[in-house]
């Protein structure tokens, strides 16, 4: 039940919620790209501050955003550990037998973990403030040019929206099946990895069977409702870009420009400036 909140819409009427979904999608892409340009800790801090501001403006409780991290915490920790132990460097901070932790390793580990953290919180904010339908409509609209090369934009958009729609249903179903097997004495949290994976079969098989059954009925329901009747399908939602949307886009554009400029042109000047601001006084 806990990780059910991942990617779930959090209803509110903040201006972030009301932004054009296309704008939000573009901003999310900019944000993700920007993160991969960041090296310096001070810029990380700036990105974090920027992120916090956006979260505050969205009126989604910070706890709800952090919860999305919980479901991928394992991944973050793994990244941290891999970098920590596997990246070699000159300055050894700690060693035991063949295990060595170097300053470079620690630096990498912290940065990679933090990068992942920013990535998850940022992108989850997109799904928390945008309904799946808006999201798919937005994507469909952004991908429209691809129709020229016969790319099935509409089908892809529908597949995504249906996938999103069925996530909670399948989650619920998973819990039910797990409970049923637990009641028959199954245990899912003991033994080594192989044993645990094997223990999941009694859950996965019924889950697949059920997913296929659901898909079959859904297909009947969609056919009955004339799916694919005409190429001139009505698009109910019409997007209109307004001044706020443009302003937000410009802010994000400025944001990534600054980060790139900082890295390649100014050679980390921002670090220097911020460093100066903090420590000169």
């Amino acid at each position: 039940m806990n990780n059910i909140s991942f990617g779930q819409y959090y209803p509110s009427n903040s201006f972030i919620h009301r932004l054009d979904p296309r704008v939000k999608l573009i901003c999310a892409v900019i944000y993700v790209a920007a993160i991969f340009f960041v090296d310096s800790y001070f810029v990380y801090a700036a990105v974090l501050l920027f992120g916090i501001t956006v979260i505050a403006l969205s009126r989604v409780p910070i706890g709800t955003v952090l919860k999305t991290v919980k479901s991928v915490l394992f991944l973050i920790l793994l990244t941290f550990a891999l970098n920590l132990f596997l990246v070699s460097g000159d300055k050894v901070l700690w060693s035991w037998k063949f295990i060595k932790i170097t300053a470079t390793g620690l630096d990498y580990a912290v940065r990679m973990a933090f990068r992942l953290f920013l990535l998850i919180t940022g992108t989850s904010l997109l799904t928390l403030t945008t309904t799946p339908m808006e999201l798919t409509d937005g994507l469909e609209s952004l991908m429209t040019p691809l129709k020229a090369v016969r790319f099935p934009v509409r089908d892809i958009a529908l597949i995504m929206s249906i996938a999103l729609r069925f996530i909670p249903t399948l989650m619920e179903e998973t819990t039910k099946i797990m409970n049923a097997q637990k009641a028959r004495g199954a245990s899912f949290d003991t033994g080594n990895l192989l044993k645990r994976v094997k223990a999941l079969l009694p859950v996965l098989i019924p889950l697949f069977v059920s997913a296929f059954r659901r898909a079959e009925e859904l297909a009947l329901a969609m056919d009955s409702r004339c799916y694919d009747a005409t190429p001139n399908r009505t698009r109910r939602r019409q997007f209109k870009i307004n001044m706020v949307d443009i302003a937000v886009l410009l802010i994000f554009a400025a944001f990534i420009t600054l980060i790139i400029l900082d890295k390649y042109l100014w050679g980390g000047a921002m670090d220097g400036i911020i460093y100066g601001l903090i420590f000169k006084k």
Partner: protein
Amino acid sequence: MDKVIEIKNISYKYGAAEGVDVEALRGVSLDVFKGEFLVIAGHNGSGKSTLAKHMNGLLLPTSGEVRVNGIPTTNDARIFEIRSAVGMVFQNPDNQTVATFVEDDIAFGPENLGVPREEIERRIDEALAAVGMSGHRKSTPQKMSGGQKQRIAIAGVLAMKPRVLVLDESTSMLDPRGRKEVVETARKLNKEGITVVLITHNTEEAFFADRIVIMNEGHITAVGTPKEIFTDAETLNKNRLVLPPLLEIQRLLVIAGYCTGEPVFTEAELSERLINLL
């Protein structure tokens, strides 16, 4: 009377590819008349649901013919005309919505048909009002009861402005309250002029039908009004169905020498009759 759906001597076989060859329908003929409330009752596996899926061309007969408004369901070019005329709601309330939000889901049919935008918005409101779910436009079906989910599914079909509403075992997974909601919605729509075909194994739901068709082993084994069907326990039992308790009581009372005459379909009427006997 106007026939909306004509089913002429159809058979349906499946599984030929796997060499099992099951004959789900064997020479079924049935007309659905405009404006009627028709119940098709049968036990699980009697062929009733297979028959329903022939009514909008989801299945095509192996032999025989089905026509909707005079158009054969084999006419590929006009299949969407058929499907928007015969709306169909299915069994599992969780498997019929394509969208996370009610309004988007109801819009799915009319969007597919290319209905103009303003018209779609109007249809969403009308469809929700028709199933008594106005005010749920922005809700998500996920959090609703089974009965409400099925009413949303009905609204999704109504938005295509169908002439016939087919409920293909749409009550079988619901609790008594949900079942009542769906059946009452269907009755209301029927009074407003929509032809209803209700497929079920719960014979209670047939109390207020104009006609009841009973199926068994891929055949139609009986057709009649509720008064005819529900005074014939033997036929029901032969078809692996049972008399609902209210009618079972009347049957037993008749045997005991009380309570003669036509059957009644509400507890209030029966108790009134019984009081008069005392």
